């Protein structure tokens, strides 16, 4: 079977640190946390949780007033990230002579337009109104982001959204990768976005008892993956996008190549809705290595799912130990959610970008606040402070979701092929 090599030619994000890739990555290398205490003074009861926001994002400035007004915030963040990746790839917003009928979009979102729905519920049930905005459906629908992106960039191939909890955008990226590798699409724009600060959504996560606690002074260090004193995850908003392109197509048009995507594996634990299983994660890691034609010893770095929940982190470390522990070297491991938070449906895409930048810049961001490793999470090569230099060639990015869906992505440096 003929397989195309898959180049990564565009990266874009809307992050708590802004939209500059260089600044975003440098702040991660510095171990800087974007987590702050979020106060929602909405009735019926004020809520204060450690959270990661994108306060610098001005939707109307980036997208224009008319377009921004037809989007929920998740689609605004997503479209802005997609535009940034598209520009980064050197592609025009409107088509030139090229035919874009096979170019497509796959997008991950766990929540969709929950802010729009919540606004509608408040109108109906809190204010006693009998009707809500006529835009509620198109603001709230889960495929709004990919639909807007396809329309704005005139992409006539697939336009699909993937809702797979915390693995949404990793799976979206994996599915885009398969379309490029198979030759079905020469270019795919992929990624994810989510906005979990709707009052009802935040309350739902709180009720699940998996959120880290924190106040004005402790929120910045509240997310502590693999740490003995971890207390849970920190939700965050954001958007991240990648342009995946047939290698020959990319080189023919003289595109700058950030790196290469090598493989993708996805499995289901088929065991429990929220309790992860080592076996399912091991199968996802193994499937990715096979798909990427890699041996465990080839892997230099893993960007962990690492949410900092009490149950989740040791299971991920067990799976990594089982796959990589018997080799001659252990891959370095870091959980960058400690700094940029858990972006739910955007998490996989944001962390894929971190992984690609780590390979490109030959520098590994740390797991922040990892002063005391939980013995249950020991036995792997934890990156506790930035490591620069070395010879990184290949890396993985893990996403393990509620529902038992697992996805692992494999990348390598552009120069390694």
């Amino acid at each position, binding site marked *: 079977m003929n397989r195309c090599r898959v180049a990564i030619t565009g990266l874009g994000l809307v992050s708590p640190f802004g939209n500059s890739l260089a600044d975003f990555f440098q702040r991660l290398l510095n171990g800087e946390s974007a987590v702050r205490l979020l106060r929602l003074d909405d009735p019926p009861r004020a809520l204060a949780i450690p959270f990661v926001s994108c306060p610098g994002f001005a939707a109307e400035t980036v997208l224009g007033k008319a377009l921004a*007004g*037809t989007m929920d915030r998740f689609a605004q963040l997503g479209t802005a990230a997609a535009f940034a990746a598209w520009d980064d790839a050197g592609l025009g917003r409107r088509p030139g002579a090229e035919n874009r009928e096979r170019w497509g979009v796959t997008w991950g979102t766990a929540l969709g337009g929950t802010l729009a729905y919540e606004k509608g519920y408040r109108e109906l049930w809190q204010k006693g109104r009998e*009707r809500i905005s006529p*835009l509620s459906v198109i603001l709230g629908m889960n495929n709004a982001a990919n639909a807007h992106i396809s329309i704005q960039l005139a992409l006539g191939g697939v336009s699909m959204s993937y809702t797979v909890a915390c693995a949404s955008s990793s799976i979206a990226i994996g599915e885009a990768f398969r379309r490029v590798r198979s030759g079905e699409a020469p270019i795919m724009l992929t990624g994810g976005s989510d906005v979990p600060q709707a009052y009802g959504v935040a309350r739902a996560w709180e009720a699940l008892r998996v959120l880290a606690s924190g106040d004005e002074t402790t929120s910045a260090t509240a997310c502590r993956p693999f740490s003995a004193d971890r207390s849970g995850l920190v939700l965050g908003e954001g958007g991240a996008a990648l342009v995946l392109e047939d290698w020959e197509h990319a080189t023919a048009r003289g595109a700058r190549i950030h790196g290469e995507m090598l493989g993708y594996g996805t499995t289901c634990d088929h065991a429990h809705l929220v309790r992860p299983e080592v076996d399912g994660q091991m199968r996802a890691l193994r499937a990715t290595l096979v798909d990427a034609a890699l041996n465990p010893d080839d892997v230099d770095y893993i960007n962990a799912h690492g949410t900092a929940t009490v149950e989740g982190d040791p299971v991920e470390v067990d799976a990594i130990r089982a796959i990589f522990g018997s080799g001659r070297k252990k891959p370095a491991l870091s959980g960058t959610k400690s700094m940029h938070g858990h972006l739910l449906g955007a998490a996989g895409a944001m962390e894929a970008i971190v992984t690609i930048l780590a390979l490109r810049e030959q520098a590994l961001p740390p797991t922040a606040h990892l002063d005391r490793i939980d013995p249950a999470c020991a036995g792997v090569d934890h990156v506790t402070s930035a490591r620069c230099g070395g010879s990184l060639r290949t890396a993985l990015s893990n996403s393990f979701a509620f529902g038992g869906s697992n996805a692992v992505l494999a990348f390598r440096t552009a120069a390694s092929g």
Partner: protein
Amino acid sequence: MDSLSLIREFLQGRLGVEPEKIVPGAFLDELGVDSLMVLELMFEFEDRFGVTLAKDLKTPRTIGEMASLMDRLRSEEQS
């Protein structure tokens, strides 16, 4: 507030259209008003003036047609 002023206020806030461009002869599509925005504007109109528009209303093409439609519905409601 008259209907034209409501249309001006809505289009300025929603699209950033300069008020002097919102004149009776201006075509809605040339101002960037699509069918979804017409729905939003109708919704706003119903809210402000307490009227209910029929579902099978013919979509106006110009600012003037829209203002006339609104004026007529308001006067029917009042009588």
